[in-house]
């Protein structure tokens, strides 16, 4: 019987856990054993007892390393070296940003699968799409965070103590996170405008009842559903156009990413200077906003609060863990058709997520050099 292991996540702010009791139950019903480090779910409000009730075995960290055939994580653990060669590691390994990490895993003989490399436009892979599920949580939280940091009301309220106009919210980048941020801010009563370089995303914004910011850019969609990076000139033009638009908003939330590349700068210093005191800017991509720092709340001299928030999903641990665990189980189920882990047949999903195998980095999107 295959054994799936789960550890406590190491990075400081990380409150998620890779499996939830519900997910454990789903694995158990597929004849998979689950070992989990004691206290792994604590910060996401899942107790050891809950896991045990669901059929998992609660062990020490060393035992989990020892026994797991497949180690499931959100982020790769710092002490991943403790994992023996030949084992399987599945998580959000982000090899595109950390090619060294991929090389290391390969060198250690670990079969590494990264959920963030999943082909996103594949209908049948949607249930495994952890980037989507986590971005969804993050987008929701970003809107809450903005409302919380903003000094006024989001909704319009006519009261005996005067009328407060609705907050004007601008969401830059209408991918999964952006759309959920739009939806949540609209729920709170803000007047929301969305912006994206992909034409399809503009229709999606409108389908949430929000306004669409018209820009100079043509459709920048790619085959894989992601946006293409802009050229330098295009990017300058975009920044200038946004510079004019941004000051009339009270809240700006940015989510624009280009996979494998630096997040584009959308909100320049000039734009921030022109914003009203009390305005809030949340940079979920960390890189969209000039001067934003991850996990930090800065206030500019002009009274604009700039929040760098790359990892908001981790701050909604129950929802994020539950969704992540469901994604992981869906992937595992796919990889273990008869209860046994296999990389054959080499279908789109398997080929998409496989980072290293048999001592080699194998993913085609990783730099040639490390693919030795």
């Amino acid at each position, binding site marked *: 019987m295959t054994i799936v292991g789960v550890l406590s996540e190491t990075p400081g702010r990380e409150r998620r856990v890779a499996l939830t009791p519900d997910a454990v139950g789903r694995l158990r019903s597929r004849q998979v054993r689950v070992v989990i480090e004691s206290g792994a779910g604590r910060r996401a409000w899942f107790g050891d007892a809950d896991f045990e009730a669901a059929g998992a075995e609660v062990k020490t960290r060393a035992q989990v390393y020892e026994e797991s055939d497949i180690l499931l994580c959100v982020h790769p653990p710092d002490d991943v070296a403790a994992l023996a060669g030949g084992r399987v590691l599945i998580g959000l390994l982000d090899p595109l940003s950390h090619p060294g990490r991929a090389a290391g895993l390969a060198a250690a003989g670990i079969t590494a699968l990264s959920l963030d490399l999943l082909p996103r436009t594949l209908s049948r892979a949607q249930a495994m799409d952890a980037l989507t599920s986590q971005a969804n949580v993050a987008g929701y939280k970003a809107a809450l965070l903005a409302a919380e940091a903003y000094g006024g009301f989001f909704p319009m309220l*006519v009261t005996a103590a005067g009328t407060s106009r*609705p907050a004007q919210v601008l969401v830059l980048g209408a991918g999964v996170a952006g759309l959920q941020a739009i939806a949540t801010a609209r729920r709170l009563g803000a007047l929301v405008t969305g912006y994206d370089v992909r034409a399809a995303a503009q229709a999606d914004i409108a389908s949430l009842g929000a306004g669409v910011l018209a820009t100079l850019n043509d459709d920048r969609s790619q085959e894989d559903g992601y946006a293409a990076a802009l050229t330098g000139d295009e990017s300058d033009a975009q920044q200038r156009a946004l510079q004019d638009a941004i000051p009339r908003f009270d809240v700006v939330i940015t989510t624009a990413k280009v996979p494998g590349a630096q997040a584009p700068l959308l909100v320049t210093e000039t734009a921030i200077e022109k914003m009203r005191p009390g305005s809030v800017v949340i940079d979920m991509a960390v890189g969209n906003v000039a001067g934003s720092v991850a996990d930090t709340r800065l206030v500019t001299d002009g009274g604009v609060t700039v929040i760098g928030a790359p990892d908001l999903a981790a701050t909604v641990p129950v929802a994020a863990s539950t969704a992540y665990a469901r994604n992981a189980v869906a992937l595992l189920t796919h990889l273990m058709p008869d209860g046994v882990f296999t990389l054959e047949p080499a279908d789109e999903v398997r080929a998409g997520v496989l980072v290293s195998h048999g001592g080699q980095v194998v993913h085609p999107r990783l730099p040639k050099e490390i693919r030795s």
Partner: protein
Amino acid sequence: MSAFGTVTHLVYVACATAFVIGLHLMNTPATARRGNQVSAGGMAVAIVTTLVVLVHDGGVDAYAAWALGIGAAGGAVAGLVAARVVRMTAMPQLVSLFNAVGGGAAALIALGHRPASTAAEVTGVLDVLIGAVTFSGSLIAAGKLAGRVPGRPLVVPYGRLASLILALSSITFAVLFVAFGGGTWALTGIAVAALIAGVLLTLPIGGADMPVVISLLNACTGTAVAMAGFVLESTPLIIAGALVGAAGAILTKLMADAMNRPIGAIIAGGYGTGDAVAVAAGGTQQVREVTVDDAAIQLAYAGKVVIVPGYGLAAAQAQHEAVALAQALTERGVEVSYAIHPVAGRMPGHMNVLLAEANAPYEQLQDLEESNPGFARTDVALVIGANDVTNPAARRPGNPVSGMPILDVDRARSVIVIKRSLGHGYAGIDNELYTDPRTAMLFADAKAGLAALLSGLHAYA
């Protein structure tokens, strides 16, 4: 039949068809006026045709021609002048007056015409009977509406006994006329009895029921005219009379239904005062009720509508219906806005929360300062479950809402208020707005009422 007779007959049938088409077109506001014109056109052709027939047949002596000409000219002038100068509000009594003379004319035909057959005799009796009842009844109805006759139900002493006697004597006269060749005097007897009966039947009916009664009498006149048609063997009279008789009957039923009053009870005059619809507010004052359909049409044909939501909208959770209605009006080209009072509802921003949920466009939401100057240009202020925030009493000192700024809905050209009753709001006082002559009440739960308004809008406008 001669070719001339054939042609005139066919023309008459065509005229009757015009009447039908006219009534058909009058079923919808959009074509109603044209319908009346079609009908009038048919009437003009019928009159001209009859003139041609008279000239062609040559049977009218000079005195008769003068009598006809002078009488008709005088009547036409009188009718046109009265119709031209009458105030909008006095139109119903004028219609009743026209109905009276129509019935009278029908009765006079039977009185003046020598019947050619038993059938003509029988229909003649019916003509006189119905025509005379209508004549006096319609006059009383018009008088009640005009305030010349007291609007409240007048109980005639021994009314039932009198009615019985009148009925019996009519029957006697009728038998004398038909079976024993009683001649004009018998018919005159019937006419007199019927005139008295018309008065006796109408007096006990309350003023609020008068529209229904007039419609009923209108149907009766139609029937009388049809009877006159039998007397004269004139097809256009038979068709047009029967048409009006039946259409009038249906209309009477629709009107009684719309007022939620059984016709039988109205005629019996025993159904309370007949004024139950005019609910008393604050003692002596009266409020005016409006039906859903009327309110819908009023809204549909308005240029600018301001919606004033209040706690009742929240209590009924009718925000979605309100916004759907506003949207439908906007699509028709009506200028719609919401006037939000600072303390409407029960918590700060209560109305905003609801309207935002229903996706009311923010541009349409106006607060007190923004909306008050606009009411003077507003055709309809639609007050939905709001009470205190519209109470003009706030402008006077000495009551619980004194000094509170209010929405000046009473400055709008008309006001429609949707609430369940004349019940009080938070402040617990009567609202003088409801007795304002420009205000009409639509008593309903806000959710149900608005849904009905919306379907009314789709159906009629």
